[in-house]
């Protein structure tokens, strides 16, 4: 089997992403550069817990012609190819349906990254590209057009996110950082709406978001406090 190590790495990455709840059902996909001319990508319509390295497809970067793999490649192969071509410094491209970032895509606006550590990982402002159906050339073009050297995550309206990195570890770190930044945004908003929201719903949301913040929580508490002072 050609590119065995890369294909096995994709299998392990997908299981990790699925365990963390970043891939709902068969949604989301992962692509890694296999060499200068090829990339490996998850197959279409596959249960990630049942996927093997032989299922992982290898495509030519230039025209997305499949050269290896027993299954049909993900419908988002074009999206991954365009991003990997646009960002030649990156070897990994992860498209997730991670729930908090997916919630943020419903707002159809860029995400301003307020936490410094996460800004270093993701970039200052994460663009949200307009809606296009999954798997279409239009979606691929929109994301590729949004690609910038200093921005390492992209949101797709009513869909999900794409995070890139020089390798899979860096891209995974960015997936987690993006979820964390979106959690920070919603936590601040939800806390500010104490009188307007059903209390049980508010408590559930806060209880869900808080653990996603890690040590950034203190910094956001500071932001909330200063904003409250300004408001009062």
């Amino acid at each position, binding site marked *: 089997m050609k590119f065995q190590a890369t294909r096995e790495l994709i299998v392990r990455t997908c299981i990790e992403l699925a365990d963390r709840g970043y891939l709902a059902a068969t949604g989301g996909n992962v692509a890694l550069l296999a060499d200068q001319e090829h990339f490996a990508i998850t197959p279409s319509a596959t249960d990630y817990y049942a996927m093997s390295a032989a299922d992982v497809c290898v495509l030519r970067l230039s025209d997305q012609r499949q050269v290896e793999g027993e299954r049909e490649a993900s419908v988002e192969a074009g999206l991954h190819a365009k991003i990997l071509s646009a960002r030649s410094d990156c070897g990994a491209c992860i498209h997730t349906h991670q729930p908090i970032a997916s919630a943020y895509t419903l*707002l159809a606006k860029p995400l301003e990254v307020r936490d410094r550590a996460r800004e270093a990982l993701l970039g200052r402002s994460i663009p949200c590209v307009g809606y296009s*159906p999954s798997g279409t050339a239009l979606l691929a073009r929109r994301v590729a057009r949004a690609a910038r050297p200093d921005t390492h995550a992209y949101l797709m309206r009513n869909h999900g996110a794409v995070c890139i990195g020089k390798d899979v570890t860096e891209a995974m770190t960015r997936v987690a950082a993006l979820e964390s930044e979106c959690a920070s945004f*919603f936590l601040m908003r939800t806390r500010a709406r104490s009188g307007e929201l059903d209390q049980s719903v508010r408590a559930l949301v806060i209880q869900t978001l808080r653990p996603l913040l890690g040590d950034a929580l203190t910094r956001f508490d500071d932001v909330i406090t200063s904003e409250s002072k300004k408001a009062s």
Partner: protein
Amino acid sequence: MIDEVVDLLRNDEARLRAGALFGDPGDSLSLRIPGREEFLFVTPERCDPTTFLFETTGLESADLHAKIYRSRKDAGGVLIGQTPWSTALASIGARVPTLFDEQARHIGSAGKPIALGRHAQLWRALEDGRNVAIYGDRRICIGTTPNRVVFNAELFEKCAKAFVIAHAGGDGIRKLPAWVRHIAGARLRKDQKRAALSYALGRMPEGMDGYF
């Protein structure tokens, strides 16, 4: 065939448990046995799969499953139970919007939460082809195959979580364009017809696991 369905049910149960989508008191899961007017049924307390007839179960928690199989010829699996997000949807009480492509394609509209005891409303919703309904604070989740019921449960959990969190944030939420919902809905109904035909022929439907 029954042994095969038992294995599938155990796989579904294990995966749903691992994702915290099954396992609380009041949860129940079942799979249709192709070619027979029967289904296999488990609850967290009743771990050994029990076979019930569609016509009568003699068990209150299985009755709703039986009625779904009688009225939905495409239903290959049914999951009923509460999650924190289904409870939150019931508390919000508003129509659950269709927000994502795959939600439109595999679940369809979940409509407004239905108050417990409003049987006629529930049946109208399910007979309309919905694969998810919020009934009381529980979600009823239907799939055309053993895999699909798990995928739909995972998918709906993500959609519910995303919607509740975005709703709590208070900003305007953008829905999926109507034309996308229309096309995806037509594909879903086509899948449901194919599944009903397969079950009528005594076969497990194939090709239902895809994203599109």
